[in-house]
């Protein structure tokens, strides 16, 4: 592990919505080949951070670099899995068609996806266990299947950096295991994966890095160094829904995702 250029380098990032800061002076350096969870309470700016790295939101201040260059030069190296609820699943299109959308960036203008793109899309569907669903209308999919289709679309982008917004949202246990396996394989291939995550319980098991966020950066680094009670308290303001260490961590009553009585939608 020699010193390398960071996969993602965010400096002084500030994003405001109607004069209200959503992200405030955030610095983040993520080395290559890391599988990182982004956690924090509702409204902490997790989705905003991902969208800002992708250049989808105007920044009030700050700088974002991907693989040592401005984002504009690195579009082809970044894949994106948006929140499942951000699109209309009644849109008239098929599963294969959605996955093919991941090839559009590389195809450039006017060119249509051909046999090669179709083969790659089928392969990606195979990797997420959805090969039999290629011709399905997307409205007929369950939540977990929709999530797998979005993952397949990111896979055909064949990127170096993957940004995923709540890929575990509303999926069944089988799909969750399948996704985790996939994410860990991506990391083994040297890819960098950032995942907005809600279930603090599974952070140490699934991820090797973590960012604790609450408008400001609370802490970021390897899970065993920064995923501490003190940092969690700082991020969640005392109402920590989970304890990182100590005997109560194994308390079975704490099983299950973070419940705060509010819907799990980041701002």
């Amino acid at each position, binding site marked *: 592990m020699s010193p390398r250029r960071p996969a993602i380098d965010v400096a002084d990032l500030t994003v405001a919505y109607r004069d209200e800061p959503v992200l405030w002076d955030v610095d983040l350096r993520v080395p290559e080949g890391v599988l990182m969870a982004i956690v924090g309470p509702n409204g902490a700016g997790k989705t905003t951070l991902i*969208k800002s790295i*992708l*250049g*989808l939101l105007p920044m009030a201040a700050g700088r974002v670099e991907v693989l040592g260059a401005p984002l*504009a030069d690195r*579009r082809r190296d*970044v894949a*994106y899995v*948006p929140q499942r609820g*951000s*699109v*209309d699943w009644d*849109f*008239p*299109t*098929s599963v294969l*068609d*959605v996955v093919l*959308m991941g090839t*559009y*960036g590389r*195809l450039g*203008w*006017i060119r*249509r*996806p051909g046999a090669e793109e179709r083969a790659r899309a089928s392969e990606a569907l195979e990797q997420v266990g959805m090969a039999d669903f290629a011709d399905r*209308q997307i*409205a007929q999919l369950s939540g977990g299947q929709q999530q797998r289709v979005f993952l397949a*679309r990111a896979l055909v*982008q064949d990127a170096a950096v993957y940004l995923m917004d709540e890929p575990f949202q*509303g*999926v*069944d*246990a*089988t799909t*969750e295991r399948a996704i985790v396996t996939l994410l860990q394989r991506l990391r083994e291939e040297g890819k960098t994966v950032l995942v907005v995550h809600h279930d603090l319980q599974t952070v140490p098991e699934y991820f090797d890095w973590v960012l604790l966020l609450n408008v400001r950066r609370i802490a970021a680094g390897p899970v065993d160094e920064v995923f501490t009670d003190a940092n969690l308290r700082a991020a969640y303001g005392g109402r920590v829904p989970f304890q990182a260490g100590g005997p109560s961590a194994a308390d079975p009553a704490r099983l*299950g*995702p*973070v*419940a*705060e*009585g509010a*819907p*799990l939608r980041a701002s």
Partner: protein
Amino acid sequence: MIELDYTLRTVALGAAVLGLSSGSLGAFAVLRGQSLLGDAISHAALPGVALAFLLTASKAPLVLVVGAGLAGWVGTLCVSAVVERSRVPYDAALGIVLSVFFGLGMVLLTYIQSQPDASQAGLDTFLFGQAAALVGRDVVTMAVLGAVALVAMLVFWKEFKLLLFDPDFAASQGLPVRALDVGLTTLLVIAIVIGLQTVGVVLMSALIVAPAAAARQWTDRLWGVVALAGLFGALSGASGALLSATGARVPTGPTIVLVATFVVGVSLLLAPRRGLVAAWARGIRNRRVLRVAGTLEDLYTLALAHEDVHYPHPAATLQTMTARPEAVGPTLDRLQRQGLVEPRDDAWALTARGLAEARRLARTRADEHDPARLGAEATGRRRQPGEPDR
């Protein structure tokens, strides 16, 4: 078949061209949730028509169409400006732009008509449309504009599709979503101005929305929706224009819109999977399946009280066990046809197959009521936060 004279042919052809372009391009607007943008654009086009005439003193279709298009375009810019610079929501911004521009158009139109110059006559057909006034050069203008818009749609098909389905993902791949958005709106403006003279500003938006709404009922593919919407639009346009031109003196716009609405009504009712009739039939089938299962289980419950599980029971006993006693007779007939029950001594008994089926149903039901089976492993589904602990 009726022999069509030249005028009627021109009218039908023109209306078909406008229906084709507004239907297929309208599909994009409808799928984006921008159905009402078409209404704002068409109303906003009216002052453009009047100004174009005032400035050029010409009624050439191309001149008026350019005026209408520019005004419609300015209208959409105003909608965007209101939404971006204030906290007025999108639908309210549409309403504001629509009424302000339409009001301005009416003022200008009234002013023009008060002028002594005789050449002004006929501009008011832009309100409700008049297909009878269509001549050959109008149709050529419409066809050229429509062809340009349709070719642009096909050339940028995959970019537009991605913009429609997932604009954030499109932007993340570096597509210029803002420019694509402007392009798509421009195509919508073109589709609308093509139809203004024939259908009129008041009802033009119906030809944007109705064909797409009907087409969506029949197909689950984007190209299918666009092609069918174009077809429905062309059919509605041609038949509506012919009806209005041949029959009583009804204005063309409303007639075309009524035909298009009829197509929507038929599609909402009769489409194979999304249609109301299909949903209704599914409901009946499901209820029947439930009744058959329910009666079989009732018979099994009764039989369990006897030594002989094939002990017959009269239909009247079964009728006391259900909320719809009148359905028990037909349900028993159905069960008999399936070989699950047989009549014996004026009563009904389970057959061997019926008994097996009833036991299977009872087992399934027991599983559903067993709380241990509701865990994450059994259902393959993790309980969501906030979901009640059942």
